[in-house]
């Protein structure tokens, strides 16, 4: 059965028809067309679908589309308005923190949730924050380095 769903994604209001069986990830990818969030496992174990819901990092594959109304949802597409990369994204580019790229959107949003609440993290804090995001390519070091560098940039007032 399909139902109309109205929600706010990246500050923009959307009204779309969603199947009652759709997850938030299906809503974002298939109904709204924001394909930056990925589906790697479909049951909350890989983190490739991580988005921000009211500021918290959430696996979009574990929320139903019908739970979206009233929430403030941010996806990877909302982080670089007009093409200016967020310091986390910029640091990942410079440090080689993205290889195949499939985990990257989720990593960026988990990192953002971390730095929004803890602007001065230790490397262990960073590793803990992305422990729900599996990366199979990098071995994690360059991602951790990038997030630490982004924290320093943000602390210095960069955006």
């Amino acid at each position: 059965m399909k139902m109309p769903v109205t929600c706010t994604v990246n500050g923009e209001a959307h009204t779309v028809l969603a199947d009652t069986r759709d997850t938030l990830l299906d809503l974002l990818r298939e109904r709204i067309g924001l394909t930056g969030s990925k589906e790697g496992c479909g049951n909350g174990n890989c983190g490739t679908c991580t988005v921000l819901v009211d500021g918290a990092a959430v696996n979009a594959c574990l929320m139903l589309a019908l739970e979206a109304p009233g929430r403030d949802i941010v996806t990877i597409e909302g982080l670089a308005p007009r093409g200016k990369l967020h310091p986390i994204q910029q640091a990942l580019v410079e440090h080689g923190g993205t290889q195949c790229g499939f985990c990257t959107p989720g990593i960026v949003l988990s990192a953002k949730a971390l730095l929004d609440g803890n602007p001065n993290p230790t490397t262990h804090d960073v590793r803990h924050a992305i422990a729900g995001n599996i990366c199979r390519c990098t071995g994690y070091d360059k991602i951790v380095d990038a997030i630490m560098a982004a924290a320093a940039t943000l602390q210095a007032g960069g955006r």
Partner: protein
Amino acid sequence: MDSEKNGALQSIGKRLPRVDARERVSGGAVYPADLKLPGMVHGKMLRSPHAHARIRRIDTTRAEALPGVLAVVTAADFPELPIGASIPMGETGYDMWMVAQTNMARGKVFWVGQPVAAVAAVDVHIAEAALALIEVDYQPLPAVIDLAAAMAAGAPVLHEHVFTKGVEPRPRSPSNICSRTVIARGDASAALMTAPATAGITVAIDTAHQGYLEPQAVVAQVDANGFLTVWASTQGQFTAELMIGRMLGLPLSQLKVIPLEVGGAFGGKIVIHGEAVAARLAQKCGRPVRIVLTREEVLQGGSGPPAAALIDIAVGADPDGRLTAIRASYHLDAGGLPGLGTSLVMQASAALYQCPNLDLQGFDVVTNKPRTEAYRAPGGIQAAFAMEQAMDALSQRLGMDPLEFRKCNAAVTGGLMPIGTPFPSIGLTTILDRVGAHPCWTDPLPQGRCPRGRGLAIGYWRGTSMTSAGHITIAGDGRPMVTMGAVDISGVRSTMAQVVAEEFGLPLDDIHVQTGDSKSVGYTDAAAGSRVARTSTAALVEASRDALGQLRTRAAEKLQCPPDQIDYAQGRFRARERAGAAISLAELMQATLTDGAVVGRGVSAKLPLGVEIGAHVCDVEVDTDTGLVTVLRYTAFQDVGRALNPIAVEGQMSGSVVQGIGWALMEGFDYGPDGRLRNASLLDYRMPTALDVPPIECVIIETPVPGVPYGVRGVGEVPIVPPAAAVANAIARAIGIRIRQMPMTPERVLRALRA
């Protein structure tokens, strides 16, 4: 290549960001599951619930009647390929009968999860509902799930046409042992009998998975003329095209494969998994069809995992520590269809040691589990887990330092490889010297609450070369536009931009690199075997020089002097004899654009091998209460010939090591007696997270390969070879016990401690 030029490289060797990184961090990179075409519908595959069964009948009428269902296909919708049908790939070709069986079972199923039918419907939920309406009448057959059962006398035979190869005289009855491979010199058994010091180990290794995060996905579309376009996540658009064309019985001129971004592959996306099925559904229903596998499908049988193995090794040395014999048997579990063979694995495990007596025997065995495929140096990690533990045990028996033991027996340039041919340029002794001088080896091991140990292991991988092609057109503004055949699974667009920038003497930003589809660039083999950066470098150096030669002719005309009196550097042609007479690439192209295109072409075939060698050192702590092994410190040394981009090299090395640690300690398929995978989710099949691994220190060593442009070696495979052995050797030195199963889970370590 010209050595004076290598002295002052402008782009090659620099730590530069990937040219496609911005797209990846902002969610713009397009993978096949992201593609949505007008009118596109959704495909789903029905998979076998049985490990071994005959298919008596398939009735699709109820599924076809479900509203929203547009097409249903079974093996009857594909031409039946004869046993032994093959397509070109490398030196041996690739077995198409097996590819067809892997994508759509015909007559019999050989593993749980093998596809038996597929549906296209307007909605993915309807497609799923339709699968439940397909009636398959199976006659279950006795199944063999593990290696020992498959080889036992009287075991149910999977394939009536398989008679063990490599046995004389030819056996009279079919067998689950598909082949026996022997590599031998001297008399290893006799040497072992008389060796003053011997050691040995028998290990059992579980199946694991490549663990790429992007499940297989494909979109297929047929136009009004019947021309098929397939957007795929593949390591090779040409290999995929050959496989799809053969499965459909479609001439190669009637289809093309467009490779999109690949969300990890590691060997698992060479063979098609659903591409031809989506194409047949699209042909049948006249709409574009998308198939995206679920993670459970990927793990349960919808993709090819690497092989489980049983390996037995005995080694012997003289009192000075010189190896006198290696005797080994390797049983590789190919899954439900004959496998990749055992030769490379056998070579990999023994190649790095000089030894007068070798007796290596390999057996490729079928069982009722998913058909296995490549995973990063396929078989290398399994072989090293056994061989490097045996060598470590022998060094202990001799009372020798394990590094000194390896130095004493290290293979050298010109020495004999196991197959009897001389080694090309290798830098193993250099690597071992670097290990010995590094703090990871010289620092004392810090004490902890629980026992700690330091392990060393070395690894070898042969790699391959095969064929790559590319061309460079010069844009109207004078900039080189590169189209290469290589699919980018390792940052090769970026490293090739560096190569072309180097050849043209231009800034990196002036170079644009793209991967062509299978109809817009020359034939190129799949991105596998650590071949792509090396062979693409060779092809694009040739293409660059071809383009520059054509430009030189034009410049000579403009500057009114013979071409041999024209110098080129950094984007400008100059007349040597006439000061001030010069023209830039941009000016030249603007002036001559309507004279016709400048297209430089390059092909690399039969490039010398760029064998890969690495040595790894790790420190572990073993919790004797829980069996948990923690890797405290990890250092990887590797000879890469020349690092085109050190960031990319480190990324390949660190990623490989973490995959290796994953298989070493936590990743293993758990099959039930019915052949069903009991841990078919990423909750139960655990891959390392950022908290499970330490920082990986990468030490890059550069011993260029002669006869290869810029001396580039393969990089991406060998760093997965030593990790499991390095961890195992560290564990053995921590607790004095060798763990004979992999993964070395807490449960297994605890059992070993309590045995």
